């Protein structure tokens, strides 16, 4: 017998049509926006033209292949998502609520990116729009005395999810996939006919249009099956224990199946345990469920992977500059991931993280440049040892770890504020140390001519060709996310959280405080060392200007704004802070000098004004606002969210109920005899 661990019911059959309408509109609007307002159709057309008239297209074969893979993955994921969402919806979220959510979280970013025709600026504006939306929503809810659904109690009530309901679920997903694809095909057909009648539209493409209109519903039918498979897997079916039914007691049965289910729990993660309820089907918020996240992840990975190819189609000329910028954002992500281990997991406040970054950069800068040959007469250059960068990437990280341990051994016995001060000092000393060591590091001039990495088949690694660096940083980030997740879910990760929660209790549970903290410090330094070596190689110069002690604060801001201890959080935080501080605010002057921009008006009124002067002020104000309205960060970990929202429900001080010596009750006990 199959059992669904669920407290919610499948939506009644008669509401199925409403459900279909709800989801088709919700998903169709952003997809159509991407396809016709932005550049989705352009990619499709390029792909098609390259097949039927090879002379007409302006891209090479490799580009076309990559674009094809992306576009197929994108549409397939969306259609399957439609099937999944329709099957998984419990129907408790109102139609308007869903549409509003999609509008705010999908359509607004899309339109902002199209409007600014810049990914970073568009997303940064979203970071302003979203908190405002949250705030307004809170006010409106308060005014209307609206209380959202109570959060589902995870794994609380068991209900038999019989074969009939499973069939209903599957049918729903297939119907959803089919109708969504059909609706999309019809919309596309109408749009293309309008294009055909109004403007220059290659007649050749009409073949494609007809083909697509026929193909899409068929594809939708099969992708609906994929969605249903995803939904069915998340009904959390579990077999009841065959031996436990002798007594026939309901309670015992429930308990036994619950335990067996939990013993199967493969999710070793701690922070994910509470998230289980999001995983259940039927789900109150299917778009936020883990099933849907698989589809987002597919789209996101495809987008990031093929971005260098898509960029010119999506944003026009200037690809090299943008990619280089994302390469820089990448090492901030690595730094944030590393600092997240130290601050987010283990709760050690590190205000001098830049020191390890500098050590990593100088490690590769000193060995992988002409400087090394000049100092030691050992010839090291790309012609002799082209592969040297790769072992030195690990080498730089290990050197940083070494210094992390050297700093950590004497200082990690300190608690909280004291540790913060020591690390602050370390962050001040190291850059000055490298600055003053001018015999080896050329002091303020820095080390020029740091070698680039080499990789078979990729000839050109100069900073004018950012694509290899883009993929290098992607690979590093992927690797380090993996390391981060595995560490978090390990015995060590548990010990880190325990130490953050209560050092004395952790120590009394057998956790060696100093060693465990050292591991956290060392892991953080390892990440920073890798980021440093990458930075040195990409920039080609290692100079002390790149390692100002104030940068440590920026790194900390990335982690805190993103959400302490949350891996997706700190990635988003790093990207957001990079985009805001080092990209948008740094470019405000350039933007304002453009007469067509509204900021230009300010320059008209105050001619001597430059945004560079108040850049830190603006950044600071934004940080304060974010912390006031969202103290847990943009994407908080489940643990942290709970901590910040349940702090007020702390319990009564222990011992309050004890009879005190001297009190009447106590005497009564003593005088029994």
């Amino acid at each position, binding site marked *: 017998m199959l059992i669904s661990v669920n407290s919610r019911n499948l939506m009644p059959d008669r509401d199925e049509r409403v459900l279909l309408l709800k989801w088709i509109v919700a998903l169709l609007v952003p997809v159509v926006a991407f396809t016709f307002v932005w550049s989705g159709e352009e990619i499709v057309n390029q792909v098609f033209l390259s097949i039927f008239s090879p002379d007409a297209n302006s891209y090479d074969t490799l580009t076309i292949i990559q674009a094809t893979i992306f576009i197929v993955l994108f549409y397939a994921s969306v259609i399957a998502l439609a099937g999944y969402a329709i099957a998984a919806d419990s129907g408790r979220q109102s139609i308007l609520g869903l549409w509003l959510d999609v509008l705010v979280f999908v359509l607004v970013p899309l339109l902002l990116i199209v409007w600014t025709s810049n990914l970073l600026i568009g997303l940064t504006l979203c970071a302003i729009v979203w908190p405002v939306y949250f705030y307004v929503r809170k006010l409106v809810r308060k005014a209307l005395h609206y209380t959202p659904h109570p959060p589902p109690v*995870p*794994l609380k009530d068991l209900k038999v999810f019989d074969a009939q309901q499973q069939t209903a679920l599957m049918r729903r997903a297939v119907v959803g996939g089919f109708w969504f694809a059909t609706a999309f095909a019809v919309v596309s057909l109408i749009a293309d006919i309008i294009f055909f009648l109004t403007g220059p539209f290659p007649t050749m493409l009409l073949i494609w249009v007809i083909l697509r209109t026929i193909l899409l519903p068929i594809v939708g039918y099969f992708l609906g099956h994929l969605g249903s498979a995803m939904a069915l897997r998340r009904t959390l079916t579990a077999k009841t224990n065959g031996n436990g039914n002798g007594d026939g007691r309901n309670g015992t049965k429930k*308990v036994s199946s*619950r*335990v067996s289910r*939990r*013993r199967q*729990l493969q999710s*070793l993660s*701690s922070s994910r*345990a*509470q998230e*289980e309820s999001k995983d259940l089907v039927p789900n109150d918020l299917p778009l936020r469920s883990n099933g849907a996240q698989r589809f987002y992840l597919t789209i996101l990975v495809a987008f990031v992977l093929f971005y260098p190819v898509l960029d010119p189609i999506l944003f026009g000329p200037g690809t090299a500059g943008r990619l280089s910028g994302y390469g820089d954002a990448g090492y901030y992500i690595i730094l944030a991931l590393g600092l997240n281990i130290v601050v987010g997991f283990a709760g050690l406040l590190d205000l001098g993280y830049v020191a390890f970054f500098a050590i990593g950069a100088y490690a590769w800068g000193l060995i992988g440049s002409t400087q090394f040959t000049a100092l030691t007469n050992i010839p090291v250059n790309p012609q002799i040892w082209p592969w040297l960068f790769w072992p030195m990437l690990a080498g730089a990280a290990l050197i940083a770890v070494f210094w992390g341990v050297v700093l950590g051994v004497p200082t990690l016995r300190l608690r909280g504020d004291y540790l913060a001060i020591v690390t602050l000092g370390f962050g001040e000393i190291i850059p000055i140390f490298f600055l003053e060591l001018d015999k080896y590091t050329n002091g303020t001039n820095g080390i020029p001519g740091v070698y680039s990495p080499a990789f078979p088949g990729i000839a050109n690694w100069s900073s004018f060709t950012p694509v290899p660096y883009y993929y290098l940083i992607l690979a590093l980030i992927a690797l380090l996310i993996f*390391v981060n997740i*595995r*560490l978090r*879910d*390990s*015995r*060590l990760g*548990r*010990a880190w*959280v*325990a130490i953050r*929660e*209560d050092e*004395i*209790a*952790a*120590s*009394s*549970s*057998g*956790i*060696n*405080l100093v060693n465990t903290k050292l*591991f956290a410090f060392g892991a953080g330094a390892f990440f920073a060392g890798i980021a440093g070596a990458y930075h040195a190689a990409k920039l080609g110069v290692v100079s002390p200007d790149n390692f100002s002690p104030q940068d440590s604060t920026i790194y900390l801001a990335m982690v805190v704004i993103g959400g302490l201890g949350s891996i997706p959080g700190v990635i988003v935080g790093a990207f957001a802070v990079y985009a805001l501080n080092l990209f948008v605010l740094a470019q405000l002057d350039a933007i304002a000098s453009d007469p067509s921009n509204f900021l230009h008006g300010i320059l008209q009124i105050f001619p001597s004004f430059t945004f560079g002067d108040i850049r830190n002020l603006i950044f600071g104000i934004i940080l304060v606002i974010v912390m006031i309205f969202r103290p847990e960060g943009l994407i908080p970990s489940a*643990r*942290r969210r*709970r*901590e910040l929202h*349940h702090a007020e*429900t702390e*319990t*009564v*001080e*222990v*011992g*309050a*109920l*004890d*009879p005190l*010596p*001297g009190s009447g009750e106590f*005497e009564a*006990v*003593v*005088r*029994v*005899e």
Partner: protein
Amino acid sequence: MSINRVRLVDESGSVGLASDALLELNAVTKRFGGLTAVQDVNLVVRPQEIVSVIGPNGAGKTTVFNLITGIYRPTSGDIRLEGRSLVKLNPDKIVIRGITRTFQNIRLFNNMTVLENVLVGQHTQLKSGILGSLFRTPRVLHEEMKARQKAIELLAFFGPTLVERQQEYVVNLSYADRRRVEIARALAAKPKVLLLDEPTAGMNEAETLEAVKYVRRLRDELQLTILLIEHKLAVTMGISDRIAVLDYGCKIAEGLPEEVRRDERVIAAYLGKAAKTDQEVSG
């Protein structure tokens, strides 16, 4: 109702010692600056005994616990477990030696689930290192699954409620349940001696009775040796094999519950204060 019985200590570990003392405090003194919190305390705990430490507030009972578990270092004197000194060890090393504890004002990891709390308790029992965790080798996976099973068994010692609520954050639990989780966490490290600091504090009548039952079961079923601090005299008298009484940091009496109850100095230590209070009230 069937509950998984867990055997935490193999018999050979706790019986058959040359000296019959398992835990031994020898003239232990602790001074904080000018204040002497504990003075020349001697105490012997034999295997599978339940020994209570009682005394008025501020008598130094919790300080004794902190000295045994390594949170404080004694100013002078010696503490031995199975004949080996514990004095210069850190708390985590003392856990490895076989002493775990609970706290008077429950110190659970509030933002971790019930199961995670018990898993942290198993820290010393698990062997997986960084590389093993990174590559998630079959050995590490197996160990982790075993640890989970073990944790569930430990929770089952206290009945089905905690097993059902294992995925909840401990702050959502009732007070008595939190006490139980804390004991389960302490048991997870496979201790020889369990130190319970006021295990019934803040509990109502029924819960206290329940607590008394499971403290006895800890000794009888798990062959544990238990040292406990307790305020409720009825509880102490009911479960202790022996009782030691502290007052102003000194041990003023020790013996069987019957003896202690009749001891002049004990009555004076408790009633003297009470009498004083009475005078103040009436005067």
